[in-house]
């Protein structure tokens, strides 16, 4: 899984992000069942209440929904919804930061574009 808990950020948010990633990457297809809170807890060795809080965050955003007596499932259309959200975050997190750093180093817009093309091939 290659995912370890970062003790400097709320764990429930990390669990929610992990589920989001699995939905985006297709490991958790729409309408498939999400592991139970106890499964999350024993896999990551975290508190089940914390895992439940992460899952419930996604239920509130209608990414997951609950089937009574069975468990949590990925809602239809949630993959597109998450991709939209991540695209916006991508601009803020990566593009803006990259441009700021480029300015600091005196990299021109043209040089930056070339670098992106080069990075695409490698």
């Amino acid at each position, binding site marked *: 899984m290659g995912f370890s808990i970062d003790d400097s*950020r*709320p764990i429930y948010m990390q669990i929610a992000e992990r589920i989001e990633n699995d939905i985006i990457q297709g490991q958790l297809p729409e309408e498939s069942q999400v592991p139970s809170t*106890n499964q999350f807890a024993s896999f990551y*060795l975290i*508190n*089940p209440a914390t895992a439940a809080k992460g899952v419930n965050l996604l239920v509130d955003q209608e990414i997951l929904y609950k089937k009574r007596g069975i468990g949590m499932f990925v809602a239809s259309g949630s993959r597109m919804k998450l991709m939209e959200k991540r695209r916006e975050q991508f601009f803020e997190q990566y593009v803006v930061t990259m441009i700021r750093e480029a300015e600091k180093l005196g990299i021109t817009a043209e040089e930056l574009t070339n670098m992106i093309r080069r990075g695409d091939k490698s």
Partner: protein
Amino acid sequence: MRTVVKVKGLTKTYGNVNAIQDVSFSIESNKIYGLLGRNGAGKTTLMHLITAQQFASSGDIQVFGEHPYENNRVLSQCCFIKESQKYPDNYRINDLLEVSSFFFPNWDRDYAHTLIELFGLPLTRRIKKLSRGMLSSIGIVVGLASRAPLTMFDEPYLGLDAVARSLFYQQLIEDYGKYPRTIILSTHLIDEVSQMLEHVMVIDNGKLIIDEDADELRGSAFTVVGPATSVESFIVGRNVIDRKPFGGLLSATLMTRLSVRDQQQAATLGLEISSISLQQLIIHMTNGSLDGKVAMDQ
């Protein structure tokens, strides 16, 4: 949610030493609590007081809504595994399990035997022939299999290697998931247990300085590093819990949640920001530079 332990104005003095000073808190049912702090901070004393093994100098303690002193209704619901727990020398491990089944109404015999196997304990060996690590493992077996509504582990690790410790954590989380109960883990190995905790209590010099949801604490402080003058202007009027100068640089840790405005301001000033772990936060708060309760700035 039910209150399992309610403590008000609790003080315990030994001669002129204040082991516990005017401590108040409540512990709610079915949560895992971490009782953290340095050695000698008062963690063990506090647990002795909750289980009526010592008398308070002043203040009030209620456990399951009653006074715990010589009260079997309360004490039969508690399991307290002490650091270096003593057992009768001539007992065998299976005698100890037998006795435990009388002490604890929720005792699970099958689970106890599963744990004995997992920890590789010799059932028929006498207690006096066991290694330090095996004795610690027995404490863990009894603590988990007791399924006591209030289970307390006080530094249960003496002599336990990393493999046995992680076995303990795995079993704790799995069994707690199946049979929720109130668990208090007292330890100074904060990094190892922090992610399993729902609530954190930190004791320093007999005072309760943190009593907070664990995930609330994560991300409630951050460190800012950069040229001293810029850092100084950034931290004016803020709750600084640690500062370290380094040449012309200054690293300051602030007890406050990082806002978008902070990030922008830091970027403009050319400062680097990093979040700090729960363990680092607790170290900052218990290194003696702080006096009394720290205001949570949220």
